[in-house]
């Protein structure tokens, strides 16, 4: 509550003035003007009047990233538009499709449905962060190549992250367990079988 009360002062600034101030501060991620309103549908979803950005520190892919974040901003938008991590895809922006899956403290989440402010102090891993320390592909990524799992590829980052999260908590899942774990990741190309083959290959190789 107090957090939002503090921000009331900023309502007195117009949006343009405020954005100018943010840009002038120069202390934050360069894409600070790409702010975000509710976009899940054609109709206006109702933005938060006078919502202001606050500078926060996030732990993303093992690095501390300082970024200005709006109260209503989702993690997917912060990653894509402020931190340049465009591997996280937006397929529906309402938790239906799983294309935006990231790990929060090793658990898979739809980043379109997580407010960025809520992940302060948590470990965020995106598809860009699952590679090994020397840039080598994660066994899941390699297995997805070997099984020709992706078709159009748009859902693939989400499939990768869901699979990596599964193997973190269960290194030897059954095919049925893998199917259940990835069930929130839609693939319109219908490559489910190849992704499951990939998960099973990855756990046998690692």
């Amino acid at each position, binding site marked *: 509550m107090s957090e939002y009360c503090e921000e009331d002062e900023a309502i007195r600034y117009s949006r*343009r003035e405020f*954005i100018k101030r943010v840009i002038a501060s120069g202390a934050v991620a360069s894409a600070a003007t790409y702010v975000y309103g509710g976009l899940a549908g054609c109709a206006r*979803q109702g933005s938060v009047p006078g919502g202001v950005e606050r500078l926060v520190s996030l732990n993303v892919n093992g690095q501390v990233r300082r970024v200005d974040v709006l109260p209503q901003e989702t993690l997917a938008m912060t990653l894509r538009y402020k931190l340049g*991590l465009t591997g996280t895809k937006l397929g529906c*922006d309402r938790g239906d499709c799983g294309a935006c899956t990231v790990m929060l403290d090793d658990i898979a989440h739809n980043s379109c449905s997580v407010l960025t402010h809520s992940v302060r102090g948590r470990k965020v891993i995106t598809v860009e962060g699952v*590679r090994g320390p020397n840039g080598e592909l994660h066994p899941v990524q390699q297995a997805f190549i070997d099984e020709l799992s992706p078709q159009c590829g748009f859902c693939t980052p989400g499939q990768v992250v869901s699979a990596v999260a599964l193997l973190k908590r269960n290194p030897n899942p059954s095919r049925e367990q893998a199917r259940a774990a990835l069930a929130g990741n839609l693939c319109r190309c219908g*490559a489910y079988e190849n992704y499951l083959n990939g998960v099973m290959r990855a756990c046998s190789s690692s």
Partner: protein
Amino acid sequence: MTYKLLGKNFIPPDVVAKVTGEAKYAEDFRADGMVFCRLLTSPMPHALVKSIDVTEALRLPGVVGVLLPDEVTPVPAPNPPILSKEPQYVGQPILAVAAVDETTAQDAIEKIDLDLEPLPFTVDPLQSLHPDGPDARLDGNVGAQGLKLQTLKWTAADFAAADAGHLPMGKSAEDWVYGDVDAGFAKSKVIIDESFVTASNSHHSMEPRTSFAYWQNGKCFVHGSTQSQSFVVPQLAQYIGIKPTELNYISEFCGGGFGSKGTAFPSMAIPALLSKKIGKPVMMRISRAEEYYIGSARNGFQGRVKLGFGADGRLLAADMYIVQESGAHNGFWDFRNAADALSVVYQPESMRWRGVPVYTNTPTRSAQRGPGENQIACVLEPLMDKAARKLNIDRLQMRKVNAPETGSKVGSDRRPVTSAYLRDALEKGAARFNWQERSARSGQRNGPKVTGFGIGQAYHPAGFNGFDGLVRITPDGKLHIHTGVGNLGTFSHSGTARIAAEVLKYDWENCVVERGDSRKHLPWNIGQFGSNTSFTMARTNYVAAMDALKKMKEIAAHDLGGKPDDYDVDGGKVFAKAHPAKHLTYAAVAQRAIDLGGKYTGKELPADINPMTKASATALAGSGLIGVAKDNLPVGGETAAFACAFVELELDLETGRHRIVELLNVGDCGTVIHPMGLETQLKGASVQGVGLATLEHLIFDPQNGIPGHVGLYQARPATYLDLPEKLSTDWVDKPDPTSPMGTKGIGEPPLGAAASAIVCAISDALGGYVFNRTPVKADMVLYAAGELPMAHRPLQVNTQ
């Protein structure tokens, strides 16, 4: 025939970027000063814009500009406009607002004073054909590409005369006939006459059709999400109002299209036009809900089909009438394709077809994977089973007796198919599936669960011709295959590039596939749709490689003596057949091509190539040995692909749900280029078939014209949980004689084969109950199992 590369698996060059997240789709690009735009869309299914006042919106801080319907390039009706003053469906774009962020743009839209006059509307084609029925457009209710926009009404007598539950059949807009249909029915032992409904369904591409545009040095740059690359350019340039040479189009990755992104679509021009007006880069992100409005869908059918069979199961006569739900604009000609599918898959001795494509106040339709062929498969295959039961013929035999062969005819013009091995596919699939033994268990009960078996078949044309190929060998010895085909996710952009490598005996490691960006100097190629790439692009890459090969031999003869025919290529060298030591390396030949100039390096070009290819080859001239040619190879008829599927499922009569125990999909797809790629097409199509058969449909509120399917959870594409427990594939590896190496496409038929096999298996589990409606939903199964009337009326659309 053994090939060095064809028939072997490889890692497509774009797959690594897909698993690492480095693959950039349209929404992943940025430019300095980028602003966002949002669309003001119609809240009414049909209306006239009386006035638009944007004064207040423009005063809002952060708003950069607006784009109004009068400011966009006019598109001739009944094609979908870029922005509309007569919106014809809920969600149709009327204007666009650019602002520093999307929230501001959306706030600005709230401040726009829009005066709309509501007009009559319809979301049911039969309603529009009624004498007093509303028209979806002010200028008519019937039309299609190749069919003049008109007003067509049936008489009250047409409607009154129709039997209850049967499609009324008034005046058609198109028709054709071959053979003596009346005589065919007269000699038939069994006649089936059924009316049916197939629902529209969304393409559900995972990447919404976002586009991003900016202008630099007089050129327009557009990052789009399209299945096709070169094919998009002329039409998109026209939408933007510029010459094709003034457009740089980038679509290296496309997050799914399934027909809905095969060509340029009007909304792509909005950020380009807005960017031109305000002088800033414009990103237009499309939401999932908006994708259901401007993203198009498969056409729905209300139809009737009468089939007459001989005692041996042979189809003697067919008479089909299709009323197509076309959406508000010219969409696609599914209604014609359905007729071709019937004519070729079952080879009726005589056939009549009639069709009426009717506009409705629903989103624009476009081709969806097997447009027409796959819906009608779900109608016809269960009727083949019904006839087989009446004739007491095995269902496999029923299909084999009617199956097409190479040279069999398609459609009203009785064009021959260049190859057809559907019967081989049926035999191969039946053997592998163990159809005879397994299907004997049909109807077996296990508590509330009943086992059912089904066979499905489908067809689609599988290739075009007449496009250009362009390859280049650079002085580093690399072969660059320039392809404008697009990246739908089939990997066939690279699969067909291997045809050129095969001709020139290149190691794949020394090949570079140049694609996805106009600036890579790409030839004029067909789009990546219609199951055509594996045929069309095989031909173009073949002719370009053959041109390169000819030039390589000429250069060797010029430098080393003798005649060009004295030389051959392999192992990175052009060598004298008699004295293999006498040779030039590919690298040296490329350098010599540059030295010799003229045709060898693209400074003289064939006269018959497309201007786009000419411009690309000219830009590349002097950089190596250029192979460039138009595909003038002989055309022997229609290249056709077929597939058949076998299904075992368990239907729960207490819940109406089912579990697919096994689905086997078998393709008739010519020479196999890339086995793993082929397998993913067959499997992916099977999964989409699950959706077409049992899950997906559009639904509109008839009172307000508002859609009830604007989320994935509502429109219901198949998920992991819908996956058949066992999903297998196979194919008939027999070459098509009109493809240089025997290849042809396969993308579409396995979807219809899978979907129709599932519908047949559900029907089988219910003892042969025919639904005549897709998707078959759980409630329909329960009504059928309980021998109760269905909740929907016959021919009703927009049902649950």
